[in-house]
Each structure stands twice: as structure tokens, then as C-alpha cells.
């Protein structure tokens, strides 16, 4: 788990002292919360690009930060998880900030925004999990074989973005640590997704009052892009963007396009008004 020097680490104690949430923080400007996908928090060029105009505040999911893997066993239910995140974000002065949630992080951002409608100023969802239709099954990435993953996650399974994610480091010990960390992270987040990643969000989404931008890769084979409109139909203020030639891992495969859409959406309201 590598984080560059310009990324700070801050830890807050929540849940009556039982859970420490570790944040990675970088950049200048308005606060932007980033909630990572099931694979865990990695500091990518996408986050650095966001950090050019924002202070990116990114919590590790409990159990996936380096020092306390068993934190996951101290959280029983999704409802508790949402309260823990809200407590941690307030402790980091992130209330009224914008949030980007990617995949599993998108479900978490949606749950937080539905439970605490005043928590976020804007909500950007990158191919979020959380809804389910039997005729549009979400692929089970938690139980997938390793060799199935590239085609599940990328529009181009042999392209550079997929290669970068699935080529292990040369150092065998680094490779072991990296793979074990990835598998454990999928297991920790999977505790709140198994066996079908739908835990009642559809009942709660109408409570979201913040404006929502939904971005989806047209060739997402993990969660079909048809879910973009299904999400939007549950929300009061939502816009949908479908990115061509992109799969599920949007920042890796279509980072520039996604940043372009996010930049317009995340502009402060007064700036947006001035530009109009």
C-alpha cells in the first residue's frame, strides 16, 4: 500500500473509541470527499488531478487500512457503517463538502446522502453498486476467478489500464502484500454486499436532496450502464453521463473524460451562476 509523500495521513477515532478511520488527504481548495471502490484505496493520478483544485479527503474502509484489519469484525450492519462514516466525516470537518463515490464507494455515498440529506453539497457517483434488477444482474466480483476480472472491469481487458492493475510488482513480497490486501479489501467491503449487492438503497434514495451526477462506462460489464437511468429515476436532482469506450474502472480507463464532467459539476454554485 503505497502513498506518495504529498499525501497526508489523518486518523479519527469514532464509534465510542472502537473504530479508527484513517484518511489520506492531499491538495488545496474546497473539500472533496472520495469514497473508494471495493478493491481498496489507492492513490492514483485521478486523485492527484482532483487534488489540483480540491482538498481530497479519502477514508480507508474499516479493516482495509494497514494497521487494524480486524476492525471489520467490530461493525455488524450497514446501518452502523453509515453512522460510523458520518461521524468520521464530521470529525474531519467534511460536512457540506462534495463527495465522489466510486462503485462500492458510490453505494456508500448514496446511503450517507439518503440518511443525512444535509451532509453533502453535491454527490458524484461513478458506476455505483446498490440497486438490483433480476434482468440486469450485477456480476459477482467477490466470487469471481482472478482470470475473469480484467474482462469484468475494463472495456479493453488487454489495454494499458487493465495491464497496470493486473501486472504484479517484480518483488515477490510486494506482490504477496498487494494481492492479500486487495483480496482482504474485497472481503471487508463484501461483508455489506454479499450475496447480492442490494441492501434496500432503492427504498432510501428518494431522501437525497443534493444534486447528483451519475457517470457510467458504456461498456461496464460489472454493473450494466442501464443502471445509470435506474439510479436517476429514484433521485430528485440527477443528471446522467454515459462515457463511451469505458468499462467499470472509469478513472483508469476514461480518467480525462470523467474529470471533465466532474469539473463542471463540482464548480462552486456562485462560480456556476457567474458562468451562466
Amino acid at each position, binding site marked *: 500500500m503505497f502513498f506518495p509523500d504529498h499525501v497526508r495521513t489523518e486518523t479519527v477515532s469514532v464509534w465510542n473509541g472502537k473504530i479508527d478511520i484513517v484518511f489520506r488527504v492531499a491538495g488545496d481548495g474546497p473539500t472533496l470527499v472520495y469514497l473508494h471502490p471495493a478493491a481498496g484505496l489507492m492513490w492514483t493520478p485521478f486523485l492527484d488531478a482532483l487534488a489540483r483544485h480540491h482538498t481530497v479527503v479519502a477514508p480507508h474502509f474499516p479493516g482495509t487500512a494497514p494497521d487494524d484489519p*480486524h476492525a*471489520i469484525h467490530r461493525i455488524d450492519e450497514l446501518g452502523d457503517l453509515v453512522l460510523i462514516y458520518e461521524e468520521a466525516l464530521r470529525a474531519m470537518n467534511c460536512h457540506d463538502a462534495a463527495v465522489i463515490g466510486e462503485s462500492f464507494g458510490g453505494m456508500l455515498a448514496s446511503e450517507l446522502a439518503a440518511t443525512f440529506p444535509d451532509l453533502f453539497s453535491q454527490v458524484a457517483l461513478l458506476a455505483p453498486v446498490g440497486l438490483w434488477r433480476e434482468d440486469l444482474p450485477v456480476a459477482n466480483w467477490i466470487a469471481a*476467478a482472478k482470470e475473469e476480472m480484467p474482462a469484468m472491469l475494463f472495456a479493453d481487458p488487454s489495454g494499458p489500464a487493465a495491464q497496470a492493475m493486473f501486472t504484479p510488482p517484480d518483488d515477490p*513480497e510486494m506482490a504477496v502484500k498487494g494481492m492479500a490486501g486487495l483480496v*482482504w479489501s474485497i472481503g471487508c467491503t463484501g461483508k455489506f454486499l454479499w450475496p447480492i449487492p442490494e441492501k434496500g438503497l432503492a427504498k432510501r434514495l428518494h431522501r437525497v436532496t443534493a444534486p447528483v451526477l451519475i457517470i457510467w462506462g458504456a461498456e461496464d460489464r460489472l454493473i450494466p450502464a442501464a443502471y445509470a437511468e435506474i439510479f436517476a429515476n429514484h433521485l430528485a436532482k440527477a443528471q446522467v453521463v454515459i462515457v463511451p469506450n469505458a468499462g467499470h474502472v472509469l478513472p483508469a480507463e476514461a480518467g480525462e473524460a470523467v474529470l471533465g464532467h466532474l469539473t463542471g459539476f463540482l464548480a462552486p454554485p456562485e462560480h456556476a451562476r457567474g458562468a451562466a
Partner: protein
Amino acid sequence: MKVNYFQLVPYRAFPADFEQNHGAAVTTPYDLADPSEIRASYADALGQFMHAARAGFDGLAVTEHGQSAYDMVPNPSLICAALAHATEAEGLSPAIFPLGRSLGKSREPLRVAEEMAMIDCISGGRLIAGFPVGLAYDSSMNNGVPPAQVRARFDENLELILRAWSEPGIFPWNGRFSQHATVNIWPRPLQTPPPVWITGIGNPNTMRFVLERAFGFNYFSWFGTKVTGHRIFDRFYEIADQLGKTPNPYQMGFMQTIAVAETDEKAERLFADHAEYFFRKALGAIPMNQLALPGGIDIRGLEFIMRDPKDFGIYEKMRTISFTELVESGALICGSPATVRDRLKQTLGELRIGNLHAMLQFGSMPRELAEANIDLFATEVIPTLKTLWADEHDHHWWPQSLGGSPRVDSAPQLKEAV
């Protein structure tokens, strides 16, 4: 030495290329199944268990696999209840050993407690209760328990069952996974309490738990006794040493696939195809992503397995494995009575094992051949094995009505999830 008869209830009539096209569990298409063969599988399996009981085996051991074509036993209590009654009716007294009632997947732990108590009562106190954590595909894929929750659910369910068996009065249970205002099962077991065994695959945490609680420890040698046997049992004895405990051989149980005929050549001729059928179309046809799911093994355990995957022995080549490789790895002991006696005495002696679960039907083996295997093993092999560890140790993990010694203290204690 206690020698139990063990078998699965496999579907025996798959086409030769089954494993190239299908998995053995969870997704196996049911349109491959011939209903008359399914029916015969149960008749033959129950018949073989009874045949072994009549042949004098000390116990009958049954495991559990849901949505599984290689072992159509979603609940061993059903088989064991039938065997408990049938043996009583014939005046036979083998231990009845459901060694696979997985508690990591169970959403009805009180029902497990009641079923086991029923078997103990039907059999007149001959129950041995086996509680594995459970296979990943069964606990999580078949039963929907998140992999990261399986172990905690196992821990809680086991405590509830032990307390439901032993507490004389009524009590409330306020657990994380189940709540019961009034626990008061009818019946309670005849034994106070029945012996408890845990099956492990090498996880040091499980070994430590077994030793601290003085349960029996079962290991299944499907990954190749010669490859994994010393790794697993040496690890167990090392942990025992760290805890200041000296396990006696009767605390150890060991499942071994065995085929015996008059000569080595005849044994190979009779059993090779059935052994290859079993290993290729059962465990060999379960992909690794069904045997291990993210969240089921903690990050330290993952790092250990990824650095050194040898606990999985011959698993990687099982889908195409040959008879010769099965014998070389020790996954199968096959040959004349003398060959089988020698190999078993060596293995059980070196690994200090006091309970053998002899798997004598496997794969496509038909009933008459399974019964011939049972008969020859009973007459030519068991008498030699019986002398091993005899009179040297007390057997605290065996029903007292069958000669077991009183339980050693294993007072239940509520644990934090691990």
C-alpha cells in the same frame, strides 16, 4: 485405534469429460442427473454404511455439502438419524458421527442442537458431533453468509449449541446472529455432553481454538497425505507445545481414501478408474474461487498462503490427476492388505493419529465393489490397526457408552470474534 467408515454420497454416472465442462458444486447443471441413479445413490450409500456397521467398524462418519454433485448430503443429520435407528434395530453399536454439520453457515443453530440431541437419543448415546466452520462455497455461495462473517457465526452458534445441550434450565440467548427469548430444547442429548470434533484444513487459529477447548481435531487428507500430512499435524503439535498441552492420539482424526484387494495389481485394476473419477470430478472440479472467498481468510492468513501454498497439496493438478499421482501423493492408499496395512501404520504412527475415517467408497464405485472393499479392509487391515495406541491413552472424545473416557473440561466461554 478407532476405525470409522466414511463415505460421501456422490453422483456416480457423470460422462467422462464432465470436469472439462462443469464444476462439482454450486453450478452443476441438474439436467445431467438421472433420477434413478440419484435414488440408487442413497440406497447404496445407506446400504454401505450398514454393511460397514455389520463388519464391525467402530463408527459411521458422515459429512455435509449443499448444492453439491459429489456429495448429495445437504444435512448429515438425515443420514445419521436413519443409521441411528437402523443400527439400534439390528443390535449394532457403532458411533454415529455426523462430522460435517457446518456451523459457519447455520442460520438455525437451535435446530442443529435439537437434531444432534435426537440422534443421540435415537442411538442410545452413540453420537459424536462434528462441527466444521464450513467450506466457503457452501457457507457463503449456497447459504448467503458473507465470508467475513462465517467465523464469527460459527463461534456464536457453537456456544449456543453447547449451552442448549448442557444447561438444565431455560435461558435467553441474545446473540449477534440469533436471538431466542426461551432456549429449552427437547430433547437434550443423553450424553452430558456428546464429544465435539472440529474439522480443520490448516488454519492455526482453528488449531489453537481446538486445543484450548479440548475438542477433537479432524483433518481430511484429500490434498495428499504425503504432501500435507506432516505440515498440518506438525503445526498442530507445535501450537499444542506453545500452549503447554500434550494432545494424545485419540484427539486426532484423519480421513484417508483407501482401496484394498487381494493383490496390488488387482487393487489398481479394480479401483483406479473410480479414484480418478472421484478426485477429478469432485474436489478437482471445484475452482479455487469457490474454496476460498475474499473475507473468509484474514489478511495475515492470506499472506501466509500466498507465500507458501503447500497446504493445498495436489489441488492444482487434481482436475487431471492420474491414479499413479494419487498413490504417490498419498491421497489414495491402494493395494493388497499388506500394502495398505504398512502404509496406514506408518502414516497413523508418524502423525500420531488415534481415529481413522476410512473412505472406502469413492467416485463411481458401485455397491458390490464398495462392499468388497469394506469386507477385505475389515477382516485384513482393521485387526492390525486396532493395536495401535491400545491401552496407552484414554479416549476422551468418544461416547462413554462405547468405552470412551469422561470428557476433559471444556467449559464454554464467550469469545470475541476472531
